């Protein structure tokens, strides 16, 4: 009986210790880590090449007219580069008006597995909301959606850069 209790307590304690080490390391880094630090850089260059092609649809006119951004009052839509995460790319599109983000949406995010669908169906709306209210890329990660949050922030930042915000 003593052995049983020892096994249960030992396992539980071990789990708590392991998990709290991981928790500790995050609170130090206020912003969520970008999915994979290397890929956001590489996908930045390759993504920029592909973005005009990708955005040649509805948002191309506004995206292309990013240089005359000084026209006040005109809303424009900018699509960020796709940021790769281990579960798939995340790509954010924002609408900017008067130097403020008025709308944000993910045009691409991982939906490959039921788990991705479950998590992102909750996380993406939250991230969109955060992007609008912050008008910057310093937004909180959604718990449980660390990778998506990381990719979202990376792509959002590139969209903000393009919109010269």
């Amino acid at each position, binding site marked *: 009986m003593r052995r049983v209790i020892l096994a249960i307590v030992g396992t539980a304690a071990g789990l708590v210790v*392991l998990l709290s080490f*991981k*928790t500790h*390391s*995050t609170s130090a880094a206020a912003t969520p880590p970008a999915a994979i630090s290397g890929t956001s850089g590489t996908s930045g260059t390759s993504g920029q090449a592909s973005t005009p092609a990708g955005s040649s649809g509805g948002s191309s006119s506004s995206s292309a007219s990013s240089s005359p951004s000084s026209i006040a009052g005109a809303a424009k839509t900018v699509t960020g580069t796709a940021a790769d995460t281990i579960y798939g790319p995340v790509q954010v599109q924002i609408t900017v008006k008067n130097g403020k983000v008025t709308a944000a949406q993910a045009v691409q995010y991982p939906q490959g597995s*039921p788990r991705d669908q479950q998590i992102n169906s909750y996380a993406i709306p939250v991230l969109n909301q955060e992007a609008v209210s912050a008008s910057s890329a310093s937004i909180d990660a959604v*718990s*449980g959606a660390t990778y998506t949050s990381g990719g979202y922030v990376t792509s959002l930042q590139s969209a903000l850069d393009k919109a010269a915000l």
Partner: protein
Amino acid sequence: MRHNWIMSSTTMAPRHGYLATGAPGPSPAGPPRTQPATVLTVIAAGALAAILLWWHQTPSIHGLGDWLTNAGRLTGLLAGYGVVVLVALMARLPPLERGVGADQLARWHAMGGRYTVCLVVTHALLITWGYAVTAHTGIISQANALLMSYPDVLMATVGALLFVGVGISSARAARRRLRYETWYYLHFYTYLAIALAFSHQFAVGAQFMTSLPARVFWGGLYACVAAAILWYRFVTPARQAARHRMRVISVRREAPGVVSVVIGGRHLQELRAESGQFFRWRFLARGLWWVSSPYSLSAPPEPGRLRITVKALGEHSHALARLRPGTRVLAEGPYGALTSAMRSQRRVLLIAGGVGITPMRALFQTLPARPGDLTLVYRASEPGDVVFRDELERLARARGARLFFVVGRRADLGQDPLSAATLRARIPGLDQHDVYVCGPAGMTSAVIRELRTAGVHRRHIHHESFEF
């Protein structure tokens, strides 16, 4: 209570020497044996590797959902690893069988099995809860989503339920509420359970979905253990059957409900069986062929002949009395670590309880010892239960060994006849003996406790008990 110790032969050495000369210390290089400590270290290292895999792949944890999910992943990883270890322990790997012993392996297996079943259940609960928190849904709807839309999770859940079922059946079997044979066959469902649960690890397991090396390593681990099971539990017995062609030579009644079966075969010396070891026997007779049971050799293996002695404890052992000479026999083995290889002291005490006399009888004949260095204490509840009386007395005389019969029910004796004080009084220099104990589980653990009290070092106590 001195009077219930009946000394059966004098300590005086016979003038014409002895059967084997005393050669204490490690036995000459025999078949490979793995030390129990080595086995435990390897198991622990593997568990650590599984934890490191998680550590390496987990970026950081935010919030309750992540906490629960990661706790679920860790328990899942450890359960997936535990299952492999449990099967490997039962794979009849010869170095483990000879170095650790089937009895100890079975105890580890039972202990680890309970632990692993708990891990499996915890894993399922934590993952469901954690996913529900992250996805902001209820537990029930999350469980439903997991079962219905997550690949292979339904299958894994069926596997987990089988694990729990087998765990419960083992607990019942241990309490003797289930027949040995039923339990034995129920245990085969664990293979099905492992097969069912395997694929979900790669399909939805966070540690494996994204890492090919992890998948290769984990898959390799399962494949190796599966290969070991196939080889040592199926191929080797089939080869042995073809090579040795064993048959029953004779059946002899030793005492009420106790029979000896002599089995003959070809090339038996190639098996390298030792005194103190056992085989798993399968007698190809009506009502017997479908189960294999472990019985110790009750005499040292001779060229072309093996002898076992069986007490009717279950249905199977009861039917052995009706075996006919010529019946074909399949034997798996030899197994068991209770051999002369355990020996490290000059003097040896053998303690047998009931039908636990069988391996002791074989050791009593072949353990290297000078006259006066070897003692056998044979504990039996009733005079009628004592078997091999003549053989043992003859051996004792020939080897100059001491032989005690300690007969009577404990309640009638009024006191433990194998207490620390009695043992110390009867066996001079008890703490300088290697002590081999074999008997029913309760008796074995009681004797070990008394021996420890009497100052015998744990390393010098070697035991086996015939549970299943």
